[in-house]
Structures are given as structure tokens and as C-alpha cells.
């Protein structure tokens, strides 16, 4: 059985349709890449899975639970962690306190939560900054802090919203390594929103492409990037190269 199932998820903001009848599944243990041009409705989908926006229509199931109607904190306690597209660390706290707050879900005792938090900071290579204020971190460090914070709630499914966005090119490989390590060591399932095509191609087991709120492709990376509708969505139909024996895009 799929870990997460989206069924006909639709989100309208007034007249704007952000997601239209989106259906796909996420299997246990896989890394699913979610791609699509700006405004395709990727982040809106995350907001609905995590309970921040209620869907206008459709069903979202995680394990045996119906997520629609749950609050974000309830969704997290069921085992879904997330990061934000625009990072949201607790700026007035130190780095380790940021992670402690998350770890306290399992260990109310601050001393123990601190020990827990420390191990996550080590994984995300922030241990040497543990007592600095979150405010003084760089963007890349903030993104890692958010991942550490989300992981400290011990999720089974982690939703990452553009973790490489605005990050120094040299640190991207390190982030990717971390992501594959998390899957291997923690048995984590991930849904990753990414703009960087090289990144998404290298880490995803499967890719779902969105365009104008709808799913336009769902399959293995190599196949999805060759889909006419995906190339068309990103670059316009002038760039669609007809493959031998195929009829060019409409």
C-alpha cells in the first residue's frame, strides 16, 4: 500500500485554480521529485498535505489516516515533516534550541531533548554552530537547520520544498548526500520539490511533473524529462524535438 495517496486534490483561491484534480501516490521508501515551472502549484500541494490549507476538493491519505481536516500539528504528529520554501527558523532562538523544540515531542525533558537535537545537528553539520543565534546563519545553513528540525520530529515522510534554492552551488552535493543518507539510514520516504533539474534527476526514483495545477507526467526521471508536455511547459513548444516515429506536440 502506498504511504501517501492524493486523490483528485483541487485547490481554488477565488477564481485561481492552484491545483486541479491532482492524483498520485508516494510509495514507502522512495524519493519522489515534484517538478514544474513557477506557479505550477507544487508548494500549494505541500500546504494541503501538511494541513496548512484545506483542499477545495479531493482526498489525501497517509497510512491509515485521512489528512483532510487535520491541523498542521496533528499532521506532523502522524509522521510528516516538512521544510518551508521560504525558510522559517525560530530566529530568536539558538540553533540547538530550534531543534530541541522539535525533539521535545518525544522527550519533554530539555536536557534529553538537547542530546537528541545534538545528534541531528551533527548529521546536518551544524554542531559547531549550536549556540549561535539562528539569525546569524547563512541561507544554506538555515535550510539545513530546517531539515534538522523537521527530522527531529522523527517523520516517516519528509517534504522538502526547494532545499537547494538560494544555496551556494558547492554545498548542493553535500545536501544531496544527506538526503540519500537519510533515506538509507532512517528508512525515510521523501517528496522533494526542486527547480534544479540536475539535482532532481540524480536523486529521484520517480518524478511527478505539474503544470498550471495539473499532473502532466508521472514516471521514472529519464522518461519524464523526455515527455513533450514537460518540455513544452518549461521551455515552450518550439523546443519540443520530435522523436523518431512520434507526432510532434499539438
Amino acid at each position: 500500500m502506498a504511504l501517501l495517496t492524493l486523490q483528485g486534490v483541487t485547490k481554488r483561491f477565488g477564481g485561481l485554480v492552484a491545483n486541479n484534480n491532482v492524483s498520485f501516490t508516494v510509495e514507502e521508501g522512495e524519493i519522489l521529485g515534484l517538478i514544474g515551472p513557477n506557479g505550477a502549484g507544487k508548494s500549494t500541494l505541500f500546504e494541503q498535505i501538511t494541513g496548512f490549507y484545506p483542499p477545495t476538493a479531493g482526498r489525501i491519505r497517509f497510512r491509515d489516516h485521512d489528512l483532510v481536516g487535520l491541523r498542521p500539528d496533528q499532521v506532523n504528529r502522524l509522521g510528516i515533516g516538512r521544510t518551508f520554501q521560504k525558510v522559517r527558523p525560530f530566529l530568536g532562538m539558538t540553533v540547538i534550541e530550534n531543534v530541541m523544540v522539535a525533539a521535545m515531542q518525544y522527550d519533554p525533558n530539555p536536557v534529553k531533548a538537547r542530546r537528541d537535537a545534538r545528534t541531528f545537528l551533527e548529521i546536518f553539520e551544524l554542531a559547531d554552530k549550536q549556540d549561535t543565534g539562528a539569525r546569524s546563519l547563512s541561507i544554506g545553513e538555515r535550510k539545513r537547520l530546517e531539515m534538522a528540525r523537521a527530522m527531529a520530529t522523527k517523520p516517516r515522510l519528509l517534504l522538502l520544498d526547494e532545499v537547494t534554492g538560494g544555496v551556494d552551488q558547492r554545498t548542493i552535493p553535500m545536501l544531496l548526500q544527506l538526503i540519500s543518507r537519510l533515506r538509507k539510514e532512517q528508512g525515510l520516504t521523501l517528496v522533494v520539490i526542486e527547480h534544479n533539474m540536475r539535482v532532481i534527476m540524480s536523486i529521484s526514483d520517480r518524478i511527478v511533473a505539474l503544470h498550471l495545477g495539473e499532473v502532466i507526467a508521472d514516471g521514472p526521471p529519464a522518461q519524464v524529462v523526455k515527455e513533450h508536455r514537460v518540455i513544452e511547459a518549461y521551455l515552450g513548444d518550439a523546443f519540443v524535438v520530435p522523436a523518431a516515429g512520434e507526432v510532434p506536440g499539438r
Partner: protein
Amino acid sequence: MATTGTVEATTHGSGSRRTFGLILLGLLVAVALAFPIVFQLPYHRDLAIKVLLFAMLAQAWNILAGYCGQVSLGHAVFFGTGAYTSSVLQMAWGVNPWFGMVIGVVLAVALSQVIGYPCFRLRGHYFAIATIAIGEIIHTLAINWEFIGGARGLTLPIQRDSLAAFQFHSTKYLYYYIILGLMSLCFYITWRIERARLGYYLKAVREDGAAAQSVGISITKYKLMAMALSAGFMAAGGTFYAQYVLYLDPDSVFPLSLSILVCLLTVVGGTGTLWGPLVGSALMLPLSEFTRIKWGGTGSAVDLLIYGALLTIMAVFQPAGLVGMFRRWGRR
């Protein structure tokens, strides 16, 4: 074991700083206990009682606004609820004021949940505005409610001096020790909260509600908890005030100016810090008394000018409050 030691040390500050803190706390307690013995004048004792009362009220406000980030400007509601509950119970049914204080606290906590639940849907300024409106509504209701004395207010029946009756006439210093005890309890609980999960959760809600939710924190639940604690201490302060002054009317226990004062004292001292409310109260109340005596009086209002100027300076240059300023110096 060595790792536990370092964890402890980093959580609660290094050893020497801890010792320094304990010495400072010991001195503070000694000064507080000795105050009415050293200062015999009723005027000084009255001022000290006000400082302690307002330190407690400011701390109550600080739990909700400083730690949890929900700025309320209607906190007089809970102060008035405490003052009126114990007083009306006492006058109508002869209920002991200590017991009345407990009932006042319970009522204020219940009221805080009724007010908080809808208001916490509002964010930032809108929450503050809603609390002002509710404060004024309840103030007006109290003025027009004849059963509790209406605009004329209530004069509590005079009784013989005793701790049980919560009244002292020959020597007022017992009031001083009662409020010192209440305030200490309030500060102790705040100190415990600061070090517990609740404190971390409240700060997380203050820093970023959405991020707090994303790590499993129910923001409504924790805002309501902060509100309950805050309202409870306000109400306890209200009963103390009623027993101390033995007269109350809506304008003395429900005014907007009271709500604003507890906010200002905390802002000057340092919001979201344990000692901020005491520092603010201990500095600003004597200052306002002093300037009023020195330059106040008919129409000159120099005292208010100085008070206002100080607040403006603090807000502009030292938004972290005096405690925040000392901390920065301490780190250098």
C-alpha cells in the same frame, strides 16, 4: 557522565555565573525581607507594595505577551475579575477573601479561555485591538451592573486585623509580605516554565506560529495555556488590591490605563525575560512617584513628560528592555 555535565552547564550557564546569580538572588531576597524593617514610613511601604504588586501583574502579562508573543491590552479584565469576585462574594455571602481569591482565579482563567479562543484566531495587532475592545466592553458592563455596585463601586466591610480576614489596619507591613509571597510564587512558576518544555513551546509559538505547527505544536492550545496562567496571576493580584485598598470601582480595576501600564513596565524591563517585569516595576513606579512629587502638581505634568520620554527612548533604542541591555553587556 561527562557529557551530562556539559549539557547541564550549557543549559544553565557556566558554574561561576551560576554562583554569581545565586548570590544576587540571595541579596535580593534579603533586601526584600528586610525592607519593611528598615523603612518604617507608611509612604515607603505603600510604594514597595505597589512595586511588588505591579511586578507580579507585569510578569503575568509577560507570560502571555513576552514568552508567547500575544500582546494583550485588555489584561485589566482579569485583574478586575479577581478584585470583584472576592469582594462581591465577601459582601453578599460572607465568603473568606482567601477563598474568594481562589474562586476569582478560577473565574478569570475560565473567562480567559472564553475570550482567548475566538481572539487567538487574530494575529498581531488585530489580537491587541480585540483585547482592547473586550476590556472596554467589560469595563462598561461593570459600570452598569448594579449588583456589583455599579459606578459607585464597593466599600469592603472593615474587620479586625487578621491574616484569615486578609485585613490589616494598625500595621500595613503584613500586606507587604503577602504580596512578596504572591509575587515570588508567580516568578518561581515563570522560572520553572522558562526551563520546561512549556517555555520552549511558548517561545516557538511567538517566533513563528507556522514553523511551530510544523513540528507538532498546537498553537491554539499553548496560547490558551499562556492566557490561563496570565489571567490567574492577574486575578490573584486583583484580590490583593481589593483587600489592600478596601474599596474598588470599575475605573480603578478595569481601566485601559492599567492594561497599558503592565505592558509598559514589562517593555521597559525586558519582555520575555524572567527579571524584566521586576526591573521595570522597581524602576518606573518609584520614578513616576518621584517626578510627580518633584515636578507634578497643578497643570505642569512634567512628571508625565519625563515618564513618556523615557518610554520612547526605551522603545526606540532598547527594545530588548533593560534586562536585554544588561545581558549584552554581560556577554562582552
